[in-house]
């Protein structure tokens, strides 16, 4: 009877379960984490400006916090953009972890439709895998987060364990997620089976599991129902959002309340007189030269805004803007300079699946030319009959420029030193392959080790 006396109903705060929030809320916020400001600024620094494709941009006097350091490859463990992404990835993983726990608890308490439950689990795992993939690419060995086990927060586990964890998440997501065409319309934009397969193919590529990458890319090609947009220039426009080429995008809308990757277009919009943005993350001369050397005018003109040109929507880019080139893939016609972009950020698209297939094929002896030339054909480039892996690397660079992959591609393929030297930067072998673990994290968890060379 005294136990009954101690069973007191809470009044002050509504308990977790009583709040009765549909588990979908927690999955939604995991997507939401990908629309945070970090992905509009810090992310540009650690994926693009650091590479040979892009320069810092803006004005010489505006360092963009620390973007000048990343651009010059002089970043350190205290570079804020690196810490911001580190924290952001863990925030996202945390939300996915909590969602996964909540889904189970909710199911136990109230019951969930099995298909719905599977879908939610698949979405959370896909989003978690994506963040782990970003983490492991940048930092190598990283903590494997258990939100309930604080001891896990400060211990790095090996890169291979993280990759195994990502694979397991994606395999489970593949088994649970519906295909893109199986979703009701209002759920367009959620993670799909194809998205998980595409990401897994890419993960295999980074792991150099060539046969697996080849097979998984093949699965997407044969069963996903995806294809290429006819006109490359439209691939990054609002008109093709969630279209045939899209495996996964970060969703955005322009109307009030606006919602998208916060300020993604604004940070990269043309700067100066008649400009509409801050002018960061500008195409490098090195990239322009690469397009020109290949005679790749279609992709060049779809990727780069030139000072003084007239854009596809009729906007005249003043000759007064501060930099000669800007990133056209970040340009949005509707709310170009507004706080939130209305542009969906393409994370995985079908052209990359073809290139993964082609690259893996060069190692496993499959058909590399077929998928490669589909990509080249769209932009009126001559087919290559027996492509080398170098051909495919170059194709990746031009096809996927400003899609946040270039730096990791040159590191992955061992081109770092040469590529950066060609861009006038010094890539220190044995150091620059990984980013430094943020200093602030090491102060918090002194037993965590730093990456070599930092």
């Amino acid at each position, binding site marked *: 009877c005294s136990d009954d006396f101690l069973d007191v109903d809470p009044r002050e705060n509504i308990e977790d379960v009583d709040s009765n929030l549909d588990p979908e809320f927690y999955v939604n916020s995991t997507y939401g984490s990908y629309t945070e400001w970090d992905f509009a600024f810090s992310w540009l620094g650690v994926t693009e400006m650091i590479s040979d494709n892009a320069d810092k941009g803006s004005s010489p006097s505006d360092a963009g916090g620390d973007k000048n350091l990343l651009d010059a490859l002089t970043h350190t463990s205290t570079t804020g953009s690196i810490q911001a992404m580190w924290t952001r990835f863990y925030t996202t993983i945390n939300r996915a972890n909590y969602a996964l726990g909540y889904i189970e608890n909710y199911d136990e308490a109230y019951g969930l439709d099995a298909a719905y439950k599977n879908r939610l689990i698949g979405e959370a795992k896909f989003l978690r895998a994506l963040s782990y993939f970003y983490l492991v690419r940048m930092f190598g060995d990283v903590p494997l987060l258990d939100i309930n086990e604080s*001891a896990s927060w400060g211990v790095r586990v090996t890169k291979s364990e993280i990759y195994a964890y990502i694979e397991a998440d994606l395999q489970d997501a593949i088994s649970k997620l519906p295909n893109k065409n199986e979703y009701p319309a*209002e759920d367009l934009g959620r993670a799909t089976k194809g998205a998980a397969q595409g990401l897994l193919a890419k993960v295999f590529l980074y792991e150099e599991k060539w046969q697996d990458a080849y097979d998984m890319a093949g699965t997407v090609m044969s069963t996903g129902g995806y294809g290429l947009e006819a006109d490359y220039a439209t691939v990054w426009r609002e008109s093709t959002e969630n279209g045939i080429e899209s495996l996964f995008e970060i969703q955005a809308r322009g109307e009030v309340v606006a*919602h998208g990757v916060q300020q993604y277009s604004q940070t990269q919009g043309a700067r100066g007189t008649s400009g509409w943005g801050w002018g960061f993350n500008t195409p490098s001369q090195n990239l322009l030269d690469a397009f020109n050397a290949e005679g790749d005018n279609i992709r060049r003109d779809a990727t780069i805004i030139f000072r003084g040109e007239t854009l596809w929507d009729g906007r005249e880019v003043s000759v007064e803007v501060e930099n000669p080139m800007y990133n056209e893939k970040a340009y949005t016609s509707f709310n170009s300079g507004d706080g939130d972009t209305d542009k969906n950020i393409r994370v995985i698209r079908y052209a990359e699946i073809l290139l993964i297939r082609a690259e893996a094929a060069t190692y496993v002896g499959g058909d590399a030319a077929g998928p490669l030339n589909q990509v080249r054909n769209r932009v009126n480039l001559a087919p290559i009959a027996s492509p080398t892996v170098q051909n495919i690397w170059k194709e990746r660079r031009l096809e996927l420029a400003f899609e946040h992959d270039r730096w990791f591609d040159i590191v992955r393929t061992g081109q770092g030193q040469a590529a950066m030297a060609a861009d006038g930067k010094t890539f220190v072998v044995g150091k620059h392959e990984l980013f430094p673990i943020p200093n602030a994290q090491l102060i*918090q968890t002194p037993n965590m080790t730093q990456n070599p060379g930092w």
Partner: protein
Amino acid sequence: VLSAQEDSLRIDQYSVEELSDSLDGDFGLELEETVVVGYGTQKRGDLTSAVSSVKAEDIMKQPATTAMQSLQGKLSGVNVLNSDAPGATPTVIIRGMGTALNGMNPLYIVDGLVVSNINNINPNDIQSIDVLKDAASSAIYGVRGANGVVIVTTKRGRGKTRITYDAYAGVRNAMNMVDMAGTQEYVQYFNEAEAAAGGIEFLSTSQPYNTDWFDEVLNTGMFFNNSVAISGSSDNFGYYFGVDHFAEEGILDDNKFKRTTVRNNNDYKLFDNRLRISQNISATFTHEIPKPFGAIDLAYRQSPLMPVTFADGTWGVPNYNVETGVAGPIGQPMNSHGNPVANLYFNNEKINTTTLQGNLEATLDIVDGLSVTSRAGATKYWYNKRAFAPLLDQWLAADPTRTEAQYTGNKNSLTFNEIETFRWSWENFVTYTKSFGSHNLSAVVGVNAEEQSIGFFSNMTGYNVPVEEQYWSIHHATGETTIDQNNYTKKSLASYFGRLQYDFDKRYFITAIIRRDGSSTFYDNKDFWGTFPSISAAWNVTNEEFLKDNGVINFLKLRGGWGKLGNDNIPFIVNKINTSLESNSANYVFGPGQDLIFGAYLGSPVKDVSWEIVKEYGGGVDFEFLSGKLFGTADYYHKTTENAILKITPVYSSGFNEDFYDHAAEIVNKGYEFSLGWRDNTSSGLRYSVSGNINFNDNEIVSVLPAYEGMMGGSLGNGRLTKRLEAGQELGSWWMYEVEGIWQSDEEITNNPHIAGAQPGFLRYKDQNGDGVIDDRDKKFFGGYIPSYTYGVNLSLEYKGFDFSVTGYGVGGNKIYNGINNARIGGENVSMEMYNDRWTGAGTSNTNPGAYRDYEASNYYLEDGDYFRLSNVTLGYNFRDMFGAARNMRVYVTAQNLFMITKYSGFTPELTRNTGDQPYDGNPYGTTGVELSAYPTIRTFLAGVNFEF
């Protein structure tokens, strides 16, 4: 052994007459004193555990609004930190700090009833206070005993009718004020900083104003207290009736505090004293007009160039004319701080509280030695605060060029905060006492049920009410109104307890306690029941044959014990779910229409937090030598908090972004307590006693959970942190740069490791790890803010009708961070000490920075916190039977805090107040120990009179 209430009837009620009598003759009396130990009493000489006590006379001697203030320096191991603010609650820490946050206060028991504090008790109504310091004694209160137990027993009627009247009145002012720079020095300092920073806008040396801000905001405070008590008893009925009124005007303009208490304690004896009923009722009313202590902080920081008001009557602002460098209403600001006097003027708040408390107790003797007691009690509390903010006037005051026409916001706001709470308890216990030859046995077993936090709060705000105070209600607000009301989650506690005391021939004593507590707070956890045992033993050596009739050793007892305790007064754990319409972070868009879909996430982890567990062992010796002239105790204790709860700032790799509470560390407090005294009479009629006590406490974090180790805290509010959690250090240890001089030249800076932006005149920090870079890795530990020893000294003299007593209190081995000196934004005033010692160019100083300096946390601002205060000096004279009906009249004068000896350069190293007006939250990784906001120590002079009829 008698029950607590019955026995307290036998304890002499305090009176001046008896105070004097007690000093006559036999000094061994204290051993026969009764000590209340929870659900019973014991003779002091029979105790097996560490219990300290004070009697009414000690409390009466040091007039204070709450009795705990009077205890400072009187009891070893009981550390009382006083706050001099009117109506404030002192912080009490017993035997070191091992425990969490706001749950570090001792458990208070008044006449057997658990209460949340004793602020509502008139000190004049208190008969005795007994402090259970060790686990061996506190275990009777189980899950709530970890911080020690303070047991208050109020007075009861006894003997013939007695009327007492006590009154005192006094004045207060601030002491140990920091000497601030005047106009000339301020201008010089400001211009030096401006020049060093590369600025070109200087102040003129010719200025129209020279304001002493402390003069402007501080007054001499006054207070008055009147207390009347009537008590007495007949064979079957005893009564005590007391009324007290205390009124204080604080040292800040218009700061007021009033308290009225009424108490009635009655005792009834029925059926030949076989049934005893006692009833206690008290009512306490307070009325307070608070004023923001932030005004004192502003007075420290604001420039003396700024006037209180300009010639045209507008409020002063810290502006100066850029062309002429002269202060005036127009121009650019010297600093970003407000007007201290306006800050006080615009603050319009009042707080009323009412506390009703009472209990009813009945004890029935069933057979000889066996009695049963039932006790029920309750506390009801109402709090009501009203705050009026003249938003328009405040807006206008911030800039003399503003006009009313430009203002678009609400003209004023009116806020009410109301709290209503109720708590009750009901306990029943059986006491059995029996002696068989030399075997003495006493046992108590009982049950307790309790509920607290039954109630609600409501906050209401209305905008734009009429300016006339009579219309200050939300009903008359013409602007927006908001309301927030919530019910508290009540807390239930169920307990079973038992204690067995046995002694053989008054030589060998043993006590065993067990308590089992269940708490509703932890009902969702697996373990919401906990068992808390203790065992202790004592050997009274003086009762052995070989020491009988010994002329030197009158009393000698050895004690030792072990116990396990809990602390369930843990912070309320909230797992906040964040979900918001505007939040970019939580929401997302889906579908062809890209509809905005809401999301939710959790800010901090869900932690299975339960009570803290404390295990303590210790032992001691009590002695009286030389016919009781020399007396004392010595104790050792070792107290381990196995799962201390700390407020954790999550690490980046956790993915959480909000602080949370968790069991994070194991903390050990160990130390010694000594008290020693001497008392004697001389043949000339002088009676005197001298005593002292000291407590050495060593605090150490034994271990920390992995991801919590390395946590930083102690924010200076400017992005700089001063503390770090690490095993092997003490709780709340300082962690910062070590200063190794002052940069003298640019060349020196270029050639040595330095922080970014270093300039000549800046503090130079040591590159501890020699990596050529100054960063967090170069910070080191500098000890903590917790004193390693605290001590008190007491002297009392009586000669003829005169009585004279002195009490002093001190601490040592602690460090205080002078945050008000360090955390500057720019343009603040400085102390004369900083001004005079400053660096003014190469070779002028290698210890003190120049006017232009950085604001990193470093040991330059960390100072010794040792202090000694002469806390009380009292001189009195007794007129016995000299005035008609009055049996006695005593007049006395008292000085409190006559002086303080400290090397600390700020206001006071006795910090109970931290940021702004926030009360001391006790979080060792918060700002505790950082003086961020000035509040001076107060010196008091008072005169009083006691009549007894």
